[in-house]
């Protein structure tokens, strides 16, 4: 027994020693990291003196939040930092992005990367090597973009060259795509493939008021089981601008092979917009018809065909979509503006004629219909009143819900009291889904001082738990939230958010993700230097 105790003690001491020793190593790493950071900043100060222009920005975020599914600790942490630095010397620009994300759970891999771009820019040439973003036309053929607010990084790594000559621009590029996407509180690298993109785009304005463009992109794969595999996209556009009327038409075609089985795959896309813009009145019309144009994998695209849906929802990101969007912006008098929108995207339904497919939505289609009317008035210089009604119909979009209709009237009043301003708002969201009818309403109040702070309070409530609700959406019925935004200086802002957030499906630019409900504290510090 004594011997067993002694072995246990010895084991305990050994593990204790290991813990102490690990903690020492950790402390040492922290000191080294701190020293490296301080030295970096010191070197920047020295470089500034050498005539090299240095600029940058930093965004640091720290969250502590409750997770009731955990067995031991019932909270999680999230830390991320993105430091951007640019060095410019004459026509040469070096740009670097250091990113670090550390989740609290040891079994989740942290994400750390360093992106850089070296660029030489002197008219008429612009050449860069490194990580870059670019869109050909409106994105039917290629759309590599960064949506920082939505944490969707869709980049290319490689070489890009632009040459401007006589009202024309030629772009040549080669790059490896990468998509870093934040979903369910975790960063994922979505398209870790061996794909390599090569593309060319030529735009010209040789004809007055007319812009013509043509483009080609080829995807090369080193690992593909498909016999004689290839994928290429090509297309072109024409844009005409005559006085207040502007029109744009883009066509794209995709040619390739079906994955694994082989055989010819063909896709097509049409995109047309026209608009009228005169002082006080603006009208915009969009039309789209996409058939197998979306190129990428399950959760990513190399092209991202545009959706007219303002809330950012698409049906299947360019695989089978048809729809339109109409927006009207009108200011009849200086103190009022009216906005009306009616946008629709659905899958094709060949039982209907072509116009029926564009303008109708029936039970056999998956799709989104979005309607908005918004009136903004300024009865006096210090007072602003905004009233709106938003209606959103989603059919086959959310997992487990056949059809969901949301009708949300909302009102917001802002009053400027001189040194302070106050803002109050109320929204009432009537939701009707397959099995449940329920409502959510929210009241908000903000008090702020220009150039100093804004304190916002929001209380949101749902009248009952809907039938479709799955456990990951949580079973809360109310979400109180407080946020303080402090302007530390004109270049530094600190935001502290405490409380609960509802979560759910959020979308931007046709890309959607599930956002987990949140209960905890978020701190965000942004700096420009």
């Amino acid at each position: 027994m004594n011997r067993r105790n002694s072995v246990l003690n010895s084991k305990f001491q050994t593990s204790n020693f290991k813990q102490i020793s690990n903690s020492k190593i950790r402390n040492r790493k922290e000191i080294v990291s701190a020293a490296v950071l301080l030295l970096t900043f010191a070197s920047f100060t020295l470089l500034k003196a050498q005539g090299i222009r240095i600029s940058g920005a930093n965004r640091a975020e720290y969250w502590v939040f409750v997770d009731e599914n955990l067995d031991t600790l019932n909270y999680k942490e999230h830390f991320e930092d993105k430091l951007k630095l640019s060095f410019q010397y004459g026509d040469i620009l070096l740009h670097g992005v250091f990113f670090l994300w550390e989740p609290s759970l040891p079994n989740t891999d942290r994400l750390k990367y360093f992106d850089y771009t070296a660029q030489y820019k002197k008219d008429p040439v612009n050449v860069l090597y490194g990580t870059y973003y670019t869109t050909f036309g409106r994105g039917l053929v290629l759309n590599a973009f960064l949506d920082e607010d939505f944490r969707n990084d869709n980049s290319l790594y490689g070489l890009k060259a632009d040459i401007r000559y006589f009202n024309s621009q030629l772009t040549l590029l080669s790059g490896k795509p990468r998509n870093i996407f934040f979903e369910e509180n975790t960063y994922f690298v979505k398209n870790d493939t061996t794909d390599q993109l090569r593309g060319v785009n030529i735009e010209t304005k040789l004809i007055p008021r007319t812009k013509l463009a043509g483009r080609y992109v080829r995807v090369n794969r080193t690992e593909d089981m498909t016999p004689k595999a290839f994928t290429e996209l090509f297309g072109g556009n024409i844009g005409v601008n005559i006085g207040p009327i502007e029109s744009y038409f883009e066509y794209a075609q995709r040619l390739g092979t079906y994955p694994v089985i082989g055989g010819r795959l063909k896709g097509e896309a049409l995109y047309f917009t026209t608009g009228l813009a005169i002082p006080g009145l603006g009208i915009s019309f969009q039309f789209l018809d996409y058939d197998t144009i979306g190129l990428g994998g399950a959760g990513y695209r190399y092209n991202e065909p545009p959706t007219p849906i303002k809330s950012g929802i698409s049906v299947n990101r360019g695989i089978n979509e048809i729809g339109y969007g109409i927006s009207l912006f009108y200011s009849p008098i200086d103190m009022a503006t009216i906005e009306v929108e009616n946008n629709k995207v659905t899958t094709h339904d060949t039982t209907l004629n072509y116009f029926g497919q564009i303008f109708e939505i029936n039970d056999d289609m998956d799709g989104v219909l979005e309607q908005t009317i918004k009136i903004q008035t300024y009865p006096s210089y210090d007072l602003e009143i905004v009233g709106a009604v938003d209606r959103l119909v989603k059919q086959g979009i959310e997992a487990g819900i056949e059809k969901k209709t949301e009708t949300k009237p909302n009102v917001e009043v802002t009053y400027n009291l001189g040194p302070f301003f106050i803002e109050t708002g109320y929204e009432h969201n009537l939701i009707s889904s397959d099995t449940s009818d329920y409502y959510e309403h929210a009241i908000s109040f903000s008090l702020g001082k220009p150039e100093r702070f804004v304190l916002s309070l929001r209380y949101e409530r749902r009248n009952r738990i809907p039938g479709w609700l799955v456990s990951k959406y949580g079973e809360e019925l109310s979400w109180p939230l407080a946020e303080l935004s402090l302007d530390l200086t004109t270049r530094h802002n600190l935001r502290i958010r405490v409380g609960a957030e509802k979560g759910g499906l959020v979308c931007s630019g046709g890309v959607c993700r599930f956002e987990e409900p949140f209960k905890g504290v978020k701190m965000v510090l942004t700096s420009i230097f």
Partner: protein
Amino acid sequence: MKKIAFLLIVCIAFIFAEEIEGQYPNAPDFTLEDIDGNTVCLDLLLTDGPVFMSFWALWCTMCIKELDALKPYFDEFDSLGVNLLAISQDKARAVPKVKPFALSHKWRYIVVLDPDNIMRDLYHVQAMPTAFIIDQNKKIVFTHQGYKPGDEEIIVETMRALFAKGAEDEPQE
């Protein structure tokens, strides 16, 4: 580690900000297209006078409020030679709505399109809206993140102060 890192970043940000306070950074060059298809170049704009620019997007309510709030001051600054730019950060899919929206709000700013967010990267914009004032020496003399009702007064005062200083610096005849 997370808490230490966060605190360290807060401290470094302040130290670094302190270091550059009073030393205005140079404004990066840019050449973009406005909503009428004209080429807009920083160097050319600066020949008229200082440049004010605000980053905005159709989805950004506060950005639109800021640009609406600055409308009454347009004539004052336009007559002084200031070029006022509204730089749209809307992606390619929203570009068709930018011109109708801007004109319906009767904005007379030079509305510039930046669908690839090149300007956002060049000027390290972290929040929307962010406003900059660039003087004729091509220095960023004012940076302002976010918008709260009343912030436009600070922007206007900064511009007026810039002109008052410019007038004082001019040699007396």
